[in-house]
């Protein structure tokens, strides 16, 4: 049971990070256009 | 203007220099006929603190030199 929770937590964390990286990669070209402060 | 001493006042006679500089100075009110006052000089000799139209501005010596002043003689 405990192992399951651990596995889920680690998977969730990994997915979260992967999504952030992918998100940032998709927006890598938003340079000067981000001047308006829309980027997070 | 760079040759005035602290506390001196005068009217702008002409503004020289690059067009960009002239425009920016003009936008802040440094135009022919405007009254200006050299308030003080920074500890290292540069920049200068100038009062024009009620506002205090910082100008570098080289830019202030582009402003030709007709000094007011203190009464």
């Amino acid at each position, binding site marked *: 049971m405990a192992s399951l929770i651990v596995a889920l937590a680690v998977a969730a964390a990994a997915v979260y990070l992967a999504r952030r990286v992918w998100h940032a990669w998709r927006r890598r070209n938003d340079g000067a256009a981000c001047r308006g402060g829309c980027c997070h | 203007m760079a040759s005035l001493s602290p506390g001196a006042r005068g009217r702008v006679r002409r503004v020289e220099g690059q067009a960009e500089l002239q425009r920016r100075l003009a936008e802040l009110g440094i135009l022919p006929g405007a009254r200006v006052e050299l308030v003080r000089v*920074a500890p290292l000799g540069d920049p200068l603190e100038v009062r024009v139209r009620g*506002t205090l501005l910082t100008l570098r010596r080289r830019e202030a030199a582009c402003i030709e002043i007709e000094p007011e003689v203190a009464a």
Partner: protein
Amino acid sequence: MSGGARAATAPLRVALVGNPNTGKSTLFNALTGLRQKVANYPGVTVERIEGRLRLGDRVATVVDLPGTYSLTAQSPDEAIALETLEGTSPHAPPPDVIVAVVDAVHLERNLFLCSQLLELGRPMVVALNQVDLAAAAGLRIDPVELTLALGVPVVATVATRGEGLDLLRHAIARAPELPRPQRPWSLPDDVAAALQPLQRALENLGYARGVAAFEALRLIGAPDDDPRLTAHPELCPLRTEAQRQLRAAGRNPASVEAELRYAWIDDVVRRAVRREHPGRRWTDRIEAVVLHRVAGPILFLLLMGLLFQAIFAWAEPVMNVVESVVNSLGWAIASLLPLGELRSLWTDGIVAGVGAVLVFVPQIAILFLFLGLLEDSGYMARAAFLLDRLMRGVGLPGRAFVPLLSGYACAVPAVLATRTIEDRRDRLATILVIPFMSCSARLPIYTLLIGTFVPAVSVAGWISLQGLTLLGMYLLGTGTALGVAALFKRTLLRGRPRPLILELPPYRWPNPRTLVVQVGHRVALFLRRAGTVILALSVVLWALATYPRARVPAGTPPGQASEFQLEQSVLGRAGRAIEPLVRPIGFDWKIGVSILSSLAAREVFVSTMGTIYGVGDATETSPALRDKLRAARDPATGRPAYTPLVAFALMVFYVYALMCVSTIAVVARETGGGRIGWRWAAFQFAFMLALAYVAALLVYQGGRALGWG
């Protein structure tokens, strides 16, 4: 005759515009209360701030645009303002109502922007702010007279006391129903004639008559790379011809717009402003000290020293409290969990990770509070004035001082703050060296290493050696920043120094409420950003350091058992693989791995070391980790794994290395985004890493050669 086909219940878009230092942000806070949304990392009012406001039965969204003196954009943040107001911004629709915030104390200069705004032909309201300060300075301004002169409602306000806000809200709600504003003066015949073709061309491009007239006048004096001209090159010959005609008529194209506007302003001021008494001059006396030849720099150094002291010494008690709270909470929950993986995940992964971040909140808060105080009171501009000569010796504008100083807190907002620097090369040079300013994330690393390896003795009786070492690290970083900037400005980014024209705002008492709101926002943003990414990272790192589980040979003492398992994990194997790289500079694989993981955020170095040493609550002042580090032995030789020399080399490494993805990302975006931006970011990362390695190498090998090994 209100315009637009939008339903009366749709939110009204309101934009706040005005010169810098008009109390615009205070007014914004007062109007929107706590219903603000800071959409980007906090900087020096260069980000887009939005809030909501109730206007009777309607709701309005309010945007606080960056302060600007004129709609002819000089710096990136001023360009944003112009784009948004004219409706050409791809990110924000044009506002329904413009609220021009005007500083009553500096009415003449403020009216310049106002006169430009009127010509845009959008519903407009003028907030005549800081009338209290104007009264104290002996000025009496008649809002009614101003209203007649401008043709739009003028509401007197004192944003810091909340006066006039109801009237302002009412005026904003009614503004769309009033006749549109227009240029309240007319062009002299010769100017009108010269501008006619240019104006007609603009109208043909689709600009409304009023806006076309405004643009035509503006473009005459605008620089050649003005966005409007680059977007429509066919206007250039028309502009050149108009300039020629003006010169022939004896006028100077560069200052024509300003001359005409100020002529009108002089007339308005004559009608609407009365000087009743000369005004109190206490601020002049303060100014005389602050900018004094000798006292000025001394005061500046004292203030910086105070800031330094505040961040370290004063924050410490609060940090200790946060730490013990985190530890107690962590322990309380840990005891509820079954012994084993789950508890380890909680204690070694989550608590270690999040705790490391929470501990910084007091420092960040103090730093931003201090910076906010310096900025709001008007001191920052004086500091720029004092330092300008020095900064120019390095090749940077005096204005670069504020972003660089912000770098002591965090490079991310500091990089954003460079938007106030107009020259592209100056801005780039500043961005490239900001990460050398030792940001607050390095503090735990310094504190951990100094606390562990530098003896707590006093030098010359009262200066602590530990404090001195810390100061040394900071000076190293700052000195390098200035030196590298000088190098860049002399080689890659050579350029002519741009004019510095900076307004010195009047001194004033900072508003506590605005300050608290500002600091609160920044802290919240820091927490959220760091808390999510670092939390996830800690969990993943914990997993990498725990799995795959190896079978421990029987009879191994528990301490060595966990060490053995660690070496068999993914993290351990990766560490061993890179160990040859870091050996020359005195580091072992554990430090190597921690350095790698600190790429996510520098403070992760400490939590990774903590995880590796199997200590649950390893923060930088935890005795357990310190003792472990002192006791750690190199398995091959049996001698201490870490000596003061190693610690020193490690600190020097961190002074220089850019171990922070957030910074890399923001640098990439702010230097142009896309390929160009990422190339600059990669360049910065590479040269900083190289510098870090070489410096650590020199320190370690040099120290060994001198017998300090």
